[in-house]
């Protein structure tokens, strides 16, 4: 059987910032959705279904917020699904929406992800103790720092690589009007002098806590033909999961991430990702995850990822730009962060990324991960309709 080709014809984000005191949760999501509709030149009536995602409900203190948000998202009388796959949720949500179109169950779908972190405290929301289970040790940084140390030990990467990533992403963010952190006076020395939080992760190498939402309009081939702006096309999409904790798990380069990327490349006909992909929006909440994921996603051989970063390959003007938008290190409304990666990849191939546009980007990868590096969601989007 053949799948319907899926096109992204509308993208909307809020201006991300530490606290949006001017809007409710409903106001925040509606802002992103309205921008996506305006971008697609569609109205609420054109939407057949809504797929919404966010990270834990404890972050805002609202259980199953899709119920309360149905009105704000024009979903009354329509199907509405709520996805939750930890940090990868923004990507998973977009993939569930994409499947609705690919399966020809719906023709035009609004997908949206958000987090309003100012309503609560994410670090402590992630640190609730559970008997007989390893806690996340004072937020996500406490959990991931040992795996970064393992990466450094395994590859011999010099301890300067993390700060290079942070310095690059924060500079890229200056070109993205929606990014949360706009550090106009950023220098490499400032990053390196910032306080150590979870050794070896420094303050300036961690993501901020943001309020924000991201929305996309996905549609079928006929919908794309009516679109006033160029569409981005889904060439491949996949999710993979593995258990959180077990003796055989490789926390530095999880098998689920490798398998997920391989599936996406197979669908998209990519055999050499380093050469064939023009831009990558990668989920990098702590700077060292850029070199780690470069290896996990097949852009570099094992142990070699840090060399690409060090050589400037991942800079905005390098030959494999990673996080031209500024990435999660500059903007982190957790539940939306994955969808922002997916949406920024689509903006690149539509040629709509503004000042942080990668010239002639034809194919871009959006990547998200979550849980204890156990959930992965990725899509590869292209400027051309897929041929198969």
């Amino acid at each position: 059987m053949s799948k319907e080709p899926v096109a992204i014809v509308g993208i909307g984000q809020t201006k991300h910032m530490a606290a949006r005191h001017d809007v409710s949760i409903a106001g925040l999501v509606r802002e992103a959705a309205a921008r996506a509709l305006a971008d697609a030149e569609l109205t609420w009536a054109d939407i057949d279904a809504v797929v919404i995602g966010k990270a834990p409900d404890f972050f805002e203190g609202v259980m199953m917020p899709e119920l309360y948000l149905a009105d704000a998202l024009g979903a009354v009388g329509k199907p509405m699904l709520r996805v939750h796959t930890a940090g990868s949720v923004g990507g998973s949500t977009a993939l569930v929406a994409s499947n609705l179109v690919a399966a020809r169950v719906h023709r035009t779908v609004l997908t949206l992800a958000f987090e309003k972190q100012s309503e609560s405290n994410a670090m402590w929301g992630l640190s609730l103790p559970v008997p007989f289970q390893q806690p996340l040790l004072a937020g996500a940084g406490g959990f991931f720092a040992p795996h970064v140390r393992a990466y450094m030990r395994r590859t011999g990467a010099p301890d300067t690589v993390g700060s290079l990533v942070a310095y690059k992403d924060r500079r890229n963010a200056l070109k993205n009007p929606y990014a949360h952190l706009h550090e106009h006076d950023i220098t490499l020395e400032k990053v390196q002098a910032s306080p150590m939080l979870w050794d070896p992760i420094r303050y300036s190498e961690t993501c901020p806590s943001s309020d924000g939402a991201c929305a996309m309009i996905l549609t079928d081939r006929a919908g794309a033909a009516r679109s006033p702006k160029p569409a981005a096309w889904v060439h491949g999409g996949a999710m993979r999961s593995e258990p959180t904790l077990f003796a055989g798990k490789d926390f530095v380069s999880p098998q689920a991430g490798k398998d997920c990327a391989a599936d996406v490349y197979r669908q998209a006909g990519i055999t050499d990702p380093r050469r064939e992909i023009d831009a990558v929006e990668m989920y990098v909440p702590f700077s060292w995850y850029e070199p780690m994921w470069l290896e996990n996603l097949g852009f570099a051989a094992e142990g070699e990822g840090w060399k690409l970063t060090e050589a400037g390959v991942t800079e905005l003007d390098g030959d494999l730009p990673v996080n031209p938008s500024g990435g999660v290190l500059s903007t982190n409304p957790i539940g939306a962060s994955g969808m922002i990666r997916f949406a920024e990849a689509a903006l690149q191939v539509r040629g709509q990324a503004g000042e942080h546009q990668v010239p002639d980007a034809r194919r871009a990868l959006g990547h998200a991960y979550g849980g204890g590096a156990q959930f992965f969601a990725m899509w590869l989007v292209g400027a051309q309709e897929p041929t198969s």
Partner: protein
Amino acid sequence: MARYAREVAVVAFAQSDHLRRTDELSEVEMVMPVLHQVLAATGLKAGEIGFTCSGSSDYLAGRAFSFTMTLDGVGAWPPISESHVEMDGAWALYEAWVKIQTGEADTALVYSYGKSSPGSVRDVLTRQLDPYYVAPLWPDAVALAALQAQALIDAGEADEAALAAVGARSRDAAVANPHAQLRGPVPQGDYQVRPLRTGDCPPIGDGAAAVVLAAGDLARRLCERPAWITGIDHRIEAHSLGLRDLTDSPSTRLAAEHAGVFEAPVDTAELHAPFSSQEVVLRKALGLTDEVSVNPSGGALAANPMMAAGLIRIGEAAARIHRGASRRAVAHATSGPCLQQNLVAVLEGDAR
């Protein structure tokens, strides 16, 4: 069958015994036996399943990311294609059904679970409401259902005796259901919130359920009498109770129309109606006559494990088709206060 690209059927269903408390079990321990059972029924191993999807709620567990641990119960190694909805498992089944429709998977494992016993589920559910204007008042699910029941009585569509009869019939039917929490004669009891008495309200309990879906000929190989999903749809309504006619369920009717419920008679209906009054509303929306066997399992009034009770309705309807006790059944799941969001599926056996 022309409605969708592929024929998809429920080929196996399993559920736990539903209990008031399961203090001795973690969520993983509660889910694992059910997963083993449902896979054993098909002879498939976790690694042979094309897609896995679960439904649950962090608020019941009292911690963020509770589903990340439950995945361990699946044995997701080597890594699997997997997703999760923070909803009743009926919607996880919907996501899995869509995945099979894309052709990217031929089988799916769907599971859901909820432990209500560690907290006060009446208080917990208030956190579902509009966080600025309604939730701070802590109106609980029973109070909101009572508003709906009173609206029905005021409209002349039910009285307290009719509601009591719904509860009695459900618990009577549950005698034949070894998994049910409340079985046989149960006193109607005192008012919880007028006009609802204890017998009009669901028991609070813990439980889990799982379903295996398969496409086409594979379904025929895995199951003697597959329960084909010939229609499935879900719709949501406005959140505010003041914007809705509580005596009706237009989202159920709309979902039923899209699922094709009204195209031919059904013999069985498994309705996710946690309150007796909600069964009255759903019967009307689905146009069910007295000839239809409604909730032969006992329904949510006999066992209502949060986040699993909707998936169980689909499983129970499918199991009746597997047993040859039903030819065409409708299954229903609900979410939110006073039936705000509703899913409807039509399940059919092969003509024989």
